[in-house]
């Protein structure tokens, strides 16, 4: 059972993303859309990626194997560079598919 987390706000502005990170479960998917794209520059994302790479449960992330995705169009429009080694680019059709591939959706907005 997995959850799709749609993150719509910049963590530089609100706590939504930080709260999202608190409820992650194994194999959950995070998709950055709208201003959520700015989180690719946020230390919370760097921490998350470090933890996932090291498979550690330090900091506030205990889940493993989280998939990070971003709507390419939304990131491109904001001149956000995507490091495809850690974050995959998707299209809106993928977001629709992910809605049904996961068991539930939480929108963080």
């Amino acid at each position, binding site marked *: 059972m997995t959850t799709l987390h749609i993150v719509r706000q910049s963590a530089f502005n609100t706590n939504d993303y930080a*709260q999202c990170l*608190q*409820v992650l*479960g194994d194999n959950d998917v995070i998709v950055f859309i709208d201003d959520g794209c700015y989180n690719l520059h946020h230390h919370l994302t760097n921490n998350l990626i470090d933890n996932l790479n090291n498979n550690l449960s330090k900091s506030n992330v*205990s889940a493993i194997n989280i998939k990070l995705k971003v709507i390419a169009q939304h990131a491109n429009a904001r001149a956000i560079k995507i490091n495809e080694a850690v974050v995959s680019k998707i299209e809106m059709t993928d977001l629709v598919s992910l809605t049904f591939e996961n068991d539930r959706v939480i*929108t963080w*907005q």
Partner: protein
Amino acid sequence: MSDHALKTLAILNSKAPYSDSAGKDSVDIALVFGSFEQPVSLFFQGDGVWQLVQGQDGSAIAVKDYLKTFSAFEFYDIEDIYVCQNSLEQRNLPATFHIEAVQVLNQRDFAERLTSHHTIFRF
């Protein structure tokens, strides 16, 4: 009847009670789902935990005190109410609330309980 199989709803409350109507809008949804005999659980995280603090009085600032409505949840069969322990600690708040039956959950349990629901709204 698979169309109308019971789908559990979780409402995740993330805002403090008085500056906007999010908390009230959320309660309205909870009461309607309760009236339609749909299972609904309430979660409080981040600034949402302020909605549970004892001794508040919205009328002092001319806000309709919808927090009083929380005491009526039992009549709407809303019995599963959870608050995030981390969020309480960050705000230096005790685990005492203006309604009974609030369960304080640590991060992992809060996450697991929240994501055991079919539909999740966040206000």
